């Protein structure tokens, strides 16, 4: 009995210590951005900062700072040159007859990031904390989880052996960048925001994922309600919208995150064209410390189109048909060789 008290006491101490370490996400310690001089943040009829409309966070800025790059920011000239190079790479023509060629021709269909509203930033990496612009080291437990996942993936077999072995995006279940955090994607990094008094809704164009953020101060949902996008609760801190999300099912990790991840997002409108979007990832099961990133959301033209991904998923079907056909042809060739 006494023993149990001691151990629960030390658990409590550990929990307190951990929450001291993680209670104040770094993004919250960093002051929220302020609107540019002379810009007054527009208000909804309810008096809240008005984010309504269509936004893009398409960017060429990498999540992590590249090797050999020092400093948090490029110059405007460096960014322009780097974006031009990236746009050229992206629009490079594919070689006829290759897999890349029969997949999407991004450039032809206007899907290149350079053909959409580009959320340019001078940052050398989206991550601004830790200051080196890199995802922090994993915990020992995190390394173990990553090793287990690799082993599980190996046991599942090849990518085209079964539908479940394909990527979530190929299966039209959820996009990797749907989040939260809402990361830019290779194409269609488009969002629509609609606000009522008690809710903010983010519609993500890819797979029509809608996030509905209640602003009424309700408690977080029961921890048994695990979801792909978690459950989100929001509130205003001054003119900044703060959204905290927990209850992830962990099946769509960002850079290895687990179901214990807590995401804190902060949205601040700084000029007519820009919402500064910051997020902090706090997942003590995977990383030794929280990490934070920033990318702008730039006003773009609407509307968003219906992305009925699953309904038109001929790609997945044909990929599996092709894989089975190749197996059959290989088996026939082997049998023919044997009989000769």
């Amino acid at each position, binding site marked *: 009995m006494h023993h149990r008290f001691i151990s629960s006491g030390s658990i409590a101490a550990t929990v307190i210590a951990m929450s001291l370490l993680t209670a104040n996400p770094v993004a919250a310690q960093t002051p929220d951005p302020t609107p540019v001089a002379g810009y007054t943040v527009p208000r*909804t*009829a*309810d*008096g809240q900062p008005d984010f*309504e409309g269509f936004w893009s966070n398409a960017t060429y800025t990498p999540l992590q700072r590249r090797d050999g790059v020092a400093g948090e920011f490029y110059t405007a000239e460096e960014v322009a040159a780097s974006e031009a190079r990236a746009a050229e790479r992206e629009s490079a023509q594919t070689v006829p007859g290759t897999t890349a060629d029969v997949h999407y021709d991004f450039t032809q269909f206007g899907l290149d990031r350079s053909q959409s509203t580009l959320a340019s930033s001078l940052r050398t990496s989206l991550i601004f904390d830790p200051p080196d612009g890199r995802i922090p080291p994993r915990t020992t437990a995190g390394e173990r989880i990553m090793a287990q996942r690799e082993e599980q993936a190996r046991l599942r*077999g*090849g990518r*085209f*052996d*079964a*539908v*479940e072995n394909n990527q979530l995006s190929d*299966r*039209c*279940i*959820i996009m990797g960048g749907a989040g939260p955090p809402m990361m830019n994607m290779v194409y269609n990094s488009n969002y*629509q925001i*609609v*606000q*009522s*008094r*008690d*809710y903010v*809704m983010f*519609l993500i164009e890819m*797979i*029509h*994922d*809608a996030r*509905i953020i*209640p602003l009424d101060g*309700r*408690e977080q*949902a029961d921890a048994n*309600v695990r*979801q*792909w*996008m978690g*459950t989100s609760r929001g509130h205003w801190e001054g003119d900044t919208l703060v959204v905290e999300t927990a209850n992830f099912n962990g099946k769509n990790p960002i850079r290895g995150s687990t179901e214990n991840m807590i995401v804190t997002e902060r949205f601040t409108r700084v000029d007519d064209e820009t919402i500064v979007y910051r997020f902090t990832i706090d997942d003590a099961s995977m990383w030794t410390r929280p990490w934070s990133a920033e990318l702008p959301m730039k006003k773009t033209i609407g*509307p*968003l*189109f*219906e992305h*009925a991904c*699953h*309904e038109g998923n001929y790609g*997945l*079907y044909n990929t*599996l*048909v092709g*894989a*089975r056909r190749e*197996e*059959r042809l*290989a*088996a026939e060739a*082997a049998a023919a060789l044997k009989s000769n």
Partner: protein
Amino acid sequence: MRDRFGRRATTTAIIAVVLLLSVTIATAQETDYLAPRTAAGNPDLNGIWQSINTANWNIEPHAAAPGLARELGASAAVPPGLGIVDGGEIPYLPQALAQRDENFANRLDLDPEIKCYLPGVPRATYMPFPFQIIQSTQHIMMVHEYAGAVRTIYMENHTLPPAPSWMGWSNGSWDGETLVIDTRGFNDQTWFDRAGNFHSDALHVTERFTARSADTLMYEVTIEDSNVFTRPWTMSMPLYRRVEANAEILEFRCVEFVEDLIYGHLRKQPDSQSQ
């Protein structure tokens, strides 16, 4: 005998009075109720709503029936319902009626709901899942729990549908207390229910959402599709607010649940693993 007749007559009279009263009350609610206003001054339809009927099984009047999956027994049986089609019967063209019956006979293979496809309109509204209205001045969003289906209702900048789609292209306007939504630009892939009731890509849906009390809406729909029906027809039903303080649209991301059904036969077989 007379005594019994007398009593019966009294009972009938009381029932008639009660019915008259309730009809009067219902009419009064429908015509006189004024919804609270948003800050912008429009009727406030914000909330999480859900139908309570069996229209998703069959929008026409129907008796209870066994389900298609024998192993699921009563849990997958068809619940009875009085239907939501005004007048009871959908005015199909003869050829279309035959198509509906064929759809019904092959519903296990053909019903788009079984494959977790987007439900279309108005089916999304009366599926047995909640949906949320998020209302601003420029846009009204309808976010459905089933398959995460989403509709954007454009209250300004009305345009023609840019392309055919599952959920259509919706332009909205206010007619006094009523939100009127004009939706076109559908594909021909969605059904109205699990009974095979269907439409073509010429479908034109006009919906009217009217608050009839603090926690109920009246939902009225006009269906026009001259490829399939002899004349326009209507359906109507109340919608109920999910009044739980913690009500929330959760994820029913059903693609994962149908992958084995759709792609299972394309799994690599053990006997081909020797290659």
